[in-house]
């Protein structure tokens, strides 16, 4: 837009805003405090002793104690849970991305009878929440598929329930790629499968990253399905956090340290992929 026409309005609003600006910053501060307060309290609580927490629950660490975090980092279970969470999330993400882009390709770029009906299958899939199927899923996976207490037993159903959203996000993305690309490659004698491999896959990188990030975070944070399926050494971090907090309920500082260390991977991943996550969610909302 031309800045010339915009400037008078902007100047006027800038002059008017200064008073309300303070209000906006004040409200922002309150929001930040309420949002981050519980998280920071947990992080700082890990640096205190239980005696400190008992004496003054709302206080700051004084002196700072590092043994809680050190104990968690030396706890082999923590690393076992961490490994399980990572492997299950990677498996889930890989299956979702590969199967999702494969399914989205013909739905986006082939013309055939029943295409919309086929797409509708995925749209309807959105209406099947995983919770509904959780008990029979538990039965099928442990008794019929023999995958109880395995990484795949959690990863495959998670991928299956993530697929509808993945296809719904990826299809418009693939449709938006210009059709000239396809025509040009056809003229060069490339088959549709060749087009998929050599042109469509490289170009749809951003879309795949978006759905991949959503699948990864979803799997990393999942609780219900792992709770029913995984035992002992196969548990994931959320299960570990829940167990630790109920088994060591007297050790508040230890619980805070364990919880904080468990949230770090998701937070780092989020900060690195923030744009993608937000884009993905937006994509889901806009369709």
């Amino acid at each position, binding site marked *: 837009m031309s800045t010339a026409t915009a400037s008078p309005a902007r100047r006027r609003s800038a002059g008017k805003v200064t008073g309300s600006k303070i209000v906006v910053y004040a409200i922002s501060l309150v929001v930040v405090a309420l949002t981050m307060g519980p998280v920071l309290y947990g992080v700082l609580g890990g640096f205190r002793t239980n005696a400190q927490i008992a004496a003054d*629950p709302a206080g700051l660490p004084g002196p700072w104690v590092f043994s809680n975090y050190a104990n968690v980092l030396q706890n082999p279970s923590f690393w076992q849970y961490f490994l399980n969470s990572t492997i299950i999330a990677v498996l889930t993400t890989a299956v979702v991305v590969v199967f999702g882009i494969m399914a989205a390709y013909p739905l986006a770029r082939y013309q055939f009878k029943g295409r919309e009906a086929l*797409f509708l299958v995925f749209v309807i899939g959105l209406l099947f929440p995983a919770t509904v199927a959780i008990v029979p899923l538990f039965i099928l996976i442990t008794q019929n598929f023999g995958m109880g207490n395995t990484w795949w037993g959690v990863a495959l159903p998670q991928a299956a329930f993530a697929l509808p959203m993945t296809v719904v996000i990826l299809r418009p993305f693939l449709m938006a790629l210009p059709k000239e690309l396809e025509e040009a490659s056809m003229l060069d004698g490339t088959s549709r499968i060749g087009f998929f491999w050599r042109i469509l896959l490289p170009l749809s990188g951003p879309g795949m990253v978006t759905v991949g990030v959503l699948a990864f975070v979803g799997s990393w944070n999942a609780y219900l399905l792992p709770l029913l399926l995984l035992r002992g050494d196969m548990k994931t971090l959320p299960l570990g956090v829940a167990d630790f907090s109920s088994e060591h309920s007297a050790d508040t500082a230890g619980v805070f340290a364990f919880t904080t260390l468990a949230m770090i991977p998701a937070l780092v991943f989020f900060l690195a992929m923030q744009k993608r996550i937000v884009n993905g969610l937006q994509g889901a909302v806009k369709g």
Partner: protein
Amino acid sequence: MIDVADDVTAPAAASPATSTAVAEPVARASQARPAGSAPGGRRKTGAAAWRKRAEIAFFVAPALVLMFLFVILPILTAVQMSVYRWKGFGPMVDFVGLRNYVSVLNNNVFTDALTHNLIIVVGSILLQLPLGLAIALLLNRKMWGQGLLRTIIFVPYVLAEVIAGVVWFQLLQPQYGVIDTILASLGIQGPPQGFLGTPDLALWTVLVVLTWKYLGLAVILFLAGLQGVSEDLYEAAALDGASWWQVQRKITIPLLGPTMRTWGFLSMIGSLQLFDMVWILTGGGPANATTTMATFLVNEGTRRQNFGIAGAASVILFVVALVLALAYQYFILRRDTQPDDGRGARKKRKGADA
């Protein structure tokens, strides 16, 4: 997100495939001619059509098989389980018809759980919509630290519900928890059993924690929606001397309608499935004051081995979710599927009038 199907497909779809179906076997030559005219084209296009079908099957089959095994099959199993009395092993032989459904629907624990879910559905929207909208409108301006603010607001959403739950569980400890301590310093006595231990307060406390966890999602989605509102509208309104509040009420909020409605749908589906947070904070207690349909069926299925009851509850949960989703589609999202131009233009005029 459900209504995407028709509008998005129409324009892009038509061209590529019509040309590809023909072009492929006789790459260069047939490009110039329409399908039928090539001599012997019939057989070739037949083969091409088969090949195309095989390709479609190849691409779509893995996803469909996976969804059949882990989505459809479990739901069919739930239906099957729901008409048997079954303890989780051996064949299902003890057919009981609809008796499990009758017993679930007459079970106060289940009907209370359903009520709790509905309270969470409505409460989440009533709390998060105005709060999220207010924060999004406040943040939707050039200000220092805006990027950081957005990141911070979104943090709770990215945390696992379990992790957020464990932290809040500690904060909410009766007497020794930090929240009771802060209240005490303000001269307010927290409830003796704690917020989570008092049946009358527990569900509302869960609702507050859920709001903390999911408000960021609403804010981020609303902010994203606000970026789609054209600058021109604001300029026109400013030229007409509209106040900030008038601009928000007459321009911004109406144009944010589709985003808000879709967010509401996501929020509703999420609230109906609520499990993790409740399981961590209260386990459904005290005295079943915070059970949800999901905690009910997990309890019946995996703890008490009443798989018939769990199956019936699953089917009921599915029907409730489906009915609410369809009703939401019909009554609320329907407006978004109508052609957009007329509405947009009318809004624009209304905004300029203000």
